[in-house]
């Protein structure tokens, strides 16, 4: 018997704010997190950096030296999520709380710096702290230690789809009875290493303007950093401790494009498959979907995502409101899906959905409900979409919780 899975809290650390409500409010007014980055000297690249991130603000006067930036972002997001869900240290200690953390790199900066130090001063002088943080699951380990999360613990890597995949895996852990409470989401840090490499791939927008999700031309995306963790819980467990259910995870699905996004039609098919599997798992029909949070980021996957979503939603595709936060937030890779989810929680609570920045309606665009402007929307069922540049597609359906205002 599969148990129902609800969301009882969220923690966010992002360039647009450190709560689901703040993130939603920023997106509603179209605030753009992207600014010229100084990480790659002499370049005009824009990125969504979290200015003056200070873990002490959230975690008090403690020693953060053993954690790198990725570990600090994740640890802070976990604190905020646990606080939001009303789970203090004693409550966590009394349970085996799990953790599923999405990421693309862990921290590529840390492993690269560890390596460079070895080259420059020799293998005897490399930093042990850096080695511990160079494994891709380091941030999950640090977060678990800091908050005493002793339940099932996993890192998930699926590129920009990681956050959605993490939420799906955590939901399954709870639904199957393997855990009662699991923090799930993702983290990604902005670094010289990631920024210069994506720039070299020719994927980033280079003209200083904000990315345009679902734009007429895929002019490129902008990288960003952040972390978001949602507290997933069995519905019974949440009810027993009188925690409010902000949302319910009612279904999810995933698929892969074996052309690794080289063929738009093939990628679109994977998007369609993921969404249809999610709807099937949830026992819902396309016309029940009230809103879509799209993965579109201004780059190559946008067109495939639009076509894939349209094929999955059929006749309903012309009407469903669409939001695409990466136009304002940037592409936070491993954290993206979780930030999208947190933004959806904010949207559900407020009953309104941010639009798609700079979107100009056009007759041939498959998602008829896309608008530049925001709208009042009854978000009783929302589709969260994650699409990775490398071919992974994950879709997750969130129903507004009874604990949230409608």
């Amino acid at each position, binding site marked *: 018997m599969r148990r129902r899975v609800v969301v009882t809290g969220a923690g966010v650390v992002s360039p647009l704010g450190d709560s689901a409500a703040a993130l939603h409010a920023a997106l509603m007014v179209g605030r753009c997190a992207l600014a010229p980055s100084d990480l790659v000297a002499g370049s005009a690249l824009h990125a969504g950096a979290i200015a003056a991130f200070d873990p002490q603000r959230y975690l008090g006067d403690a020693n953060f030296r053993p954690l790198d930036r990725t570990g600090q972002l994740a640890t802070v997001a976990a604190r905020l999520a646990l606080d939001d869900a009303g789970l203090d240290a004693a409550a966590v200690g009394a349970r085996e709380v*799990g953790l599923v953390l999405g990421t*693309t*790199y862990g921290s*590529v900066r840390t*492993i690269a710096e*560890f*390596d*460079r130090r*070895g*080259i*420059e001063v020799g*293998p*005897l002088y*490399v930093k*042990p702290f850096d*080695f511990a*943080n*160079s*494994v*891709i*699951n*380091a941030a*999950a*380990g*640090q977060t*678990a*230690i800091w*908050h*005493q*999360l*002793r*339940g*099932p*613990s*996993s*890192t*998930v*890597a*699926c*590129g920009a789809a990681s956050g959605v*995949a993490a939420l799906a895996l955590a939901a*399954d852990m709870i639904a199957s009875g393997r855990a009662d409470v699991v923090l799930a989401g993702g983290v990604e840090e902005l670094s*010289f290493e990631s920024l*210069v*490499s*994506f720039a*070299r*791939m*020719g*994927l980033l927008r280079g003209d200083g303007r904000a990315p345009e999700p679902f734009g007429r031309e895929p002019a490129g995306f902008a990288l960003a950093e952040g972390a978001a963790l949602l507290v997933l819980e069995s519905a019974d467990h949440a009810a027993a401790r009188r925690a409010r259910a902000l949302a319910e995870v009612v279904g999810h699905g*995933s*698929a*892969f494009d*074996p052309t*690794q996004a080289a063929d738009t039609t093939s990628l679109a098919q994977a998007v369609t*498959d993921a969404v249809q*599997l999610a709807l099937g798992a949830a026992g819902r029909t396309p016309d029940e979907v009230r809103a879509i949070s799209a993965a579109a980021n201004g780059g190559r996957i946008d067109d495939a995502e639009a076509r894939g979503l349209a094929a999955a939603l059929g006749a309903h595709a012309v009407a469903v409101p669409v939001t695409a936060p990466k136009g304002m937030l940037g592409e936070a890779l491993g954290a993206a899906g979780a930030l999208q989810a947190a933004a959806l929680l904010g949207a559900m609570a407020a009953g309104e959905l941010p639009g798609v920045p700079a979107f100009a309606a056009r007759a041939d665009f498959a998602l008829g409900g896309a608008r530049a402007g925001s709208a009042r929307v009854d978000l009783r069922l929302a589709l969260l979409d994650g699409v990775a540049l*490398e*071919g*992974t597609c994950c879709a997750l359906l969130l129903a507004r919780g009874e604990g949230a205002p409608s």
Partner: protein
Amino acid sequence: MRRVAVTGIGVVSPVGTGRKRFWEALLAGTSGIAPVQSFDTSRFKVKLGAEVRDFDPAPWCRRLAPEGVGRASQMAIAAARLALADAGLDPGALEPRRTGVAMGTTSGEPLEVERFDDALLAGGAAAVDDRLAARYPCHRIPGQVAAELGLRGPNVMLPNACAAGNYAVAYARDAVASGRADVMLAGGADAFSRITYTGFARLGAIASDRCAPFDRERTGMVPGEGAGVLVLESVESARARGARIYAVVAGYGLSCDAHHMTASHPEGDGPARAMQQALRDAGLAPADVSYISAHGTGTPTNDRLETLAVKRAFGAVAERVPMSSVKSMLGHTMGAASALEAAVCCLAVADGRVPPTVNYEHPDPECDLDCVPNRARALEVRAAMNNAYAFGGANASVLFTSE
């Protein structure tokens, strides 16, 4: 929920490529540990590694150009093709949307980081290319396996370091059991690198002379590389097509120490909970377990704490359960380790033999369980438990049983 069987095994390992070579080598006590060849170790005090010698990706990468694929991915592709062949499954006959890939790793493709850094230090930012974005991300590993084989089903990388392979098998088992997929390729891969070697050397973790798990004079682990992939499908499907079933994936347990980044919990708490959870999941008692494939890295601390954890989980029964460490022969193949060790468990169940812990000479009162010293043993294995413990305190135990 459907019962899930392992019907194919593919390996690229320091003791050989292919299930048959691998198993025969382990039963014979063959070691893949030797002085490191792929980079200069003159600045290190330690010299040993478990590298995969003479691996040629060309026969395995038929759709993808091998030079466009990182080493860990190449080995993963090879192991995947071997596993499917071993299962008697033609890749072209698989239903693409019903076939998925779940892999684990510790570092992904660390050679790409080395390449980036070498270029950066030599020529500055102008000298670096796109490969840290295009090739390095670790989810490329399962992605490229699926790209090579044309698979459209669930695709995930679970980079849980030294326990990653077990996580991948657990994920794949759930995918098949729940009906999300009909066939899953599950395993792990990691490539040998200067970065990884430097790190473990700096921690003082690398053995000075040989890998001797549970031996009182043991001096540490030996970094290695490789890939292991299992084919998982439902028992019904396997029977329907007359496939050989090595074992059933009966259950698994996951836990986190939440204690220390590189050292285990001092009382074996997390590992014990993972074992107990696996037993509960499989509906088995400790007395039902015939064999344990240990994490058994060979470091003084791991082997002692692992022994403690097994005693905690198994109670008095612990001293009757043979527990060997193939890391004594394979070294520590990182993300591939628990996948290769899962293969060992399946083979033990199917073959009625268990591999030894080699290099065992001096009994250690703190590691006083039956480590199957030096010689393989014939044994009816009705249930085999695969234990793996990772940096960051993530623990995973998977139980394999006879059909």
